[in-house]
């Protein structure tokens, strides 16, 4: 096992990793920006190194600074958490070059999964269902577009190959609109990314966002830990997740889960990761992407499987075999997570400031992952997630009841939080029935 680990992150995930290391008996080094000198991840690590000023790109994204911190503290490995450098193939490579183990998959895998087109192609190769799509459409084969479109069917979506952030994207609902939409998308893509290459893809109406948790090791083992239902989203930001999904049955879970695990073995995936799918109204799953890191919402999977995902991730990074075979994994009970953000619950504007009272809920079935505390200044420099509230119950009904009462007794004063929004969602009749997809928050009027 590693003699010392540096945690290249902040906030709740940094503390989560420190706790995992403590349980494994591994001393830890925290890194922090000047704005985070009073953070709990700094307080609870065995050592802490200030790596730069408040701005993330000068501190938490500052690779030389983080590597230097690792060198002066003689760590054997770096855990990147999520966000920041967690999916930087370059950072993983630098770690490797410096003789420091990056706790995550190999740089090539990060690289592969970071490229949507390549990831999609590889997923198809290893047998995962992908959204039906066309070949690349460039200037020379633009007249083939209608034929591609017929094969896929309408509605479809035009996506820029180099795209991101919605630019170069167009939804096309009928054949008559294709020509114009294509022209707009191509010119948008060209001006935004310097390439007019686009492709067509089946457009999924109001899909579910469902993801599978996987774990792999370097000995050829890979397992899945079931799925998470993540359809409660606001502008592609997940707000509430639960497992099992109310609409995935045991047979589907086993079938798709085993396919996913086999895919990971084929790819040679050697860490914790998440395979994201869209599930359309016809019950078809389509691979959309893979996150090659620990996920914000990993705790709900931990609650129903009993597997400590972060500890397993560290163990396999140290070369050990996975502590579980697929047959050891059973989903027991139900878990839900609410992401408590420092934000106005109506207009969603961030609400930084000093927390004047803080008292998290406890009691049966409640787990809180947070670095918040009374008198803590929630900085405007970083994201607004201040606590992950997880409720577990023997069934969905009990988990929901516990979440409601936990939200009721969660005291956070001095700043606005999303707690009132969560209460509204969790007690909504359609949510209670489990009848929701990614359009849910818009449909109930929470998001305009």
């Amino acid at each position, binding site marked *: 096992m590693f003699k010392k680990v540096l945690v290249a992150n902040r906030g709740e995930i940094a503390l989560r990793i420190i706790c995992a290391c403590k349980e494994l008996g591994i001393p830890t080094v925290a890194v922090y920006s*000047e704005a985070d000198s*009073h953070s709990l991840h700094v307080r609870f690590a065995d050592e802490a190194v*200030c790596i*730069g000023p408040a701005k993330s790109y000068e*501190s938490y994204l500052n690779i030389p600074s983080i590597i*230097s*911190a690792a*060198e*002066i503290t003689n760590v054997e490995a770096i855990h990147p958490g999520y966000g920041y450098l967690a999916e930087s193939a370059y950072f993983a490579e630098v770690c490797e070059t410096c003789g420091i183990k990056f706790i995550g998959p190999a740089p090539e895998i990060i690289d592969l999964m970071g490229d949507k087109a390549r990831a999609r192609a590889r997923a198809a190769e290893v047998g995962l269902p992908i959204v039906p799509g066309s070949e690349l459409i460039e200037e020379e084969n633009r007249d083939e577009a209608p034929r591609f479109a017929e094969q896929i069917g309408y509605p479809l979506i035009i996506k820029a190959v180099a795209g991101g952030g919605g630019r170069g994207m167009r939804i096309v609902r009928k054949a008559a609109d294709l020509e114009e939409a294509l022209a707009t998308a191509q010119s948008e893509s060209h001006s935004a990314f310097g390439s007019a290459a686009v492709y067509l893809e089946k457009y999924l109406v109001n899909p579910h966002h469902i993801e599978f948790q996987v774990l792999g090791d370097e000995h050829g083992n890979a397992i899945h830990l079931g799925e998470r239902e993540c359809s409660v989203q606001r502008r592609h930001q997940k707000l509430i997740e639960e497992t099992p999904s109310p609409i995935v049955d045991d047979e589907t879970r086993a079938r798709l889960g085993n396919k996913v695990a086999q895919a990971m073995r084929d790819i040679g995936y050697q860490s914790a990761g998440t395979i994201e799918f869209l599930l359309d109204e016809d019950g078809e799953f389509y691979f959309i992407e893979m996150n090659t890191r620990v996920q914000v919402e990993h705790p709900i999977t931990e609650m129903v499987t009993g597997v400590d995902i972060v500890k397993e991730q560290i163990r396999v990074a140290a070369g050990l075999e996975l502590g579980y075979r697929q047959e050891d994994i059973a989903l027991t009970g139900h878990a839900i997570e609410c992401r408590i953000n420092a934000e106005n619950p109506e207009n969603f504007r961030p609400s930084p400031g000093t927390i004047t009272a803080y008292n998290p809920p406890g009691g049966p079935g409640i787990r809180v992952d947070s670095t918040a505390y009374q008198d803590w200044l929630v900085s405007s420099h970083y994201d607004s997630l201040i606590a992950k509230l997880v409720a577990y119950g023997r069934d969905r009904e009990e988990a929901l009841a516990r979440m409601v009462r936990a939200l009721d007794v969660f005291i956070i004063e001095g700043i606005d939080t999303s707690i009132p929004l969560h209460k509204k969602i969790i007690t909504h009749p359609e949510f209670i029935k489990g009848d929701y997809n990614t359009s849910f928050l818009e449909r109930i009027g929470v998001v305009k």
Partner: protein
Amino acid sequence: MDINEIKVLVELIQSSGIEEFEMEKSGVRLRIRNSRNLQVTGVAAELPHTIVTAVQSQAEIPPAEEEQDDLYVFKAPIVGTFYLTPKPDADAFVSVGSRVSKSQVICIIEAMKIFNQIESDVSGEVVEILVENGQPVEYGEPLFKIRQS
């Protein structure tokens, strides 16, 4: 800050003869003025006069950077290992008493196997070297005290 803390404060101020007390702590502002003549008989005994302004901070916060007079604290601009000499047996870039000018190299910080020359951003006299040769330093760690001139 709770009632017991305030009580302690008030008693403290009363017994100390402090005339005025102000305090601010995460949302709590406290001001106490005490203008009685305490047990003073007759003559104009001078009142103790103390103004306390307490800005509450947590114990682990490093002491305020002293910028008394014209002492400038030069801090590490990057994380790494601090060296006073360009190579093991060479002379130090500076020592106590050295005069440095702006942009003059005053130390090296090794980071990722690279020896970064660190330049002074002020001119003056090195009054104190705060880190030993070969020690690791974090971002913002005080390295030198320089009397500016």
